[in-house]
């Protein structure tokens, strides 16, 4: 038996969904990038967000941890409203893991330091404990031999696995993935998806912006399709792939599933 990737201490059973978005709208100047987006992600659920480029998928998941500010609506994460002056955002963000398209490991820190920095600075863990949990997770993503290396010495796929481990080291209650495989060479996509599948099967709550429909088929509970800043379709996996209701979603699916 492999030890689980997900080591978050389960909080008291939440009363509402893990992520609840209500009528989220966002503008860049005059340009509206998100229009009345409403959806939710329940505990343990895996939700895949897809859609054509520029449809607002990345912006939407960055609203969950307020990396992108939004002007209207509300996002509530595990009972904490994101758009509220009283909310301690760094504290909230520490509980929401995020994986980026371009990995964004800190290039001047070794892999081990990448894994421990926020644990020490944000969670106040002592270095030894932080290193222990970091190394455990590094082992789980199959990279324990690389702890002393620097990000620039790893392949893209390896860097992204480290980035996932770095996010997990904070014991997040939910994980956000922003196109985690889009910047990878094709032969490295699999190793990253494997880690994500394992995580999903262990019950991690996940919101993933991705075009990997195979991944969606395998582990998603729901699929959200976005276009032009709107949530066009929010359906269970089977409904979405079986008979997507909107023409735009059908169109999109036919384009990406052709190849």
């Amino acid at each position, binding site marked *: 038996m492999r030890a689980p990737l997900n080591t978050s201490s389960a909080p008291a059973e939440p009363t509402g969904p893990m992520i609840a978005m209500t009528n989220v709208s966002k503008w860049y100047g005059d340009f509206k990038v998100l229009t009345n987006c409403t959806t939710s992600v329940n505990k343990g659920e895996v939700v895949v967000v897809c859609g054509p480029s520029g449809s607002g998928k990345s912006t939407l998941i*960055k609203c969950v*941890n307020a*990396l992108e500010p939004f002007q209207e609506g509300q996002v509530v994460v595990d009972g904490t409203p994101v758009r509220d002056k009283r909310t301690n955002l*760094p*504290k*909230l*963000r*520490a*509980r*929401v*893991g*995020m994986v*980026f*398209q*371009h990995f*964004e*490991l*800190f*290039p*001047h820190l070794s892999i081990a330091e990448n894994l421990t*920095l*926020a644990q020490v*600075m*944000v*969670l106040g863990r002592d270095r030894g404990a932080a290193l222990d949990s970091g190394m455990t997770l590094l082992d789980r993503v199959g990279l324990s031999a690389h702890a002393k*290396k*620097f*990000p*620039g*010495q*790893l392949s893209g796929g390896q860097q992204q696995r480290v980035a996932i481990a*770095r*996010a997990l080291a*904070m014991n997040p209650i939910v994980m956000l993935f922003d196109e985690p495989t889009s910047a990878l060479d094709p032969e490295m996509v699999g190793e990253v998806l494997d880690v994500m599948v394992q995580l999903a099967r262990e019950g991690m709550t996940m919101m993933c912006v991705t075009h990997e429909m195979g991944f969606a088929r395998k582990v998603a509970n729901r699929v959200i399709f976005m276009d032009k800043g709107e949530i066009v379709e929010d359906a269970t996996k089977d409904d979405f792939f079986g008979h997507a209701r909107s023409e735009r979603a059908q169109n999109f699916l036919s384009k990406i599933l052709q190849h």
Partner: protein
Amino acid sequence: MNYNWNWGIFFEASPEGTGTYADMLLSGLTWTIVTALCSWVIAFLLGSLVGVMRTLPNRAANAVGTTYVELFRNIPLLVQMFLWYFVLPEVLPEQWGSWLKQLPNAPFYTAVVCLGFFTASRVAEQVRAGIQSLPRGQKMAGTALGLTVGQTYRHVLLPNAYRIILPPLTSEFLNNLKNTSVALTIGLLELTARARAMQEFSFQVFEAFTAATILYVIINVVVIFISSWIERRVAIPGSR
């Protein structure tokens, strides 16, 4: 040209009665180095602060940073030196003004502050450029992990930005070192001032300024060596 070369002049006693001409030049060199180092501390710290302010998502901080940079980099250094030394004591409340005028080593303190503030405006621009050259995702990654703005700068952005701007920062350090010569106008007895004094006392103008030139070149070469040593030391494995 009827010039009487005398390279032995350095070992002759200077009319100041405190040693040879060589001692005089070396004392000037010491002042040059001390002034350069002290003003660099101000320039580096203040410049970093101002540079960071210009990158913060806060309008007031941007405005303060921009005003600082434009003010201090657009007034000639010589004018700034005069403003600090001759004008400031007059516009301050009388007590402060006379305290300043009576300060021992006033030219030194003035030169340090003046050069520090002037060079800070240039360091600030490089720090800003360094931070802005980093991928936007780096700041996001720090933020997403729960680091505060201060922690993200301290542990993520600045360590990378400084590595990138190390070469232009070295140039700035060298400029600052050479700019100390401007302080001779307010009476700082640094290397150029001493070379000039030697010329006036001894009429050996070529020897005096040849020596000054060589000394400037030597310290700048040393600085360049130190800088490339630092560059090698902080180089990140796996990056170009």
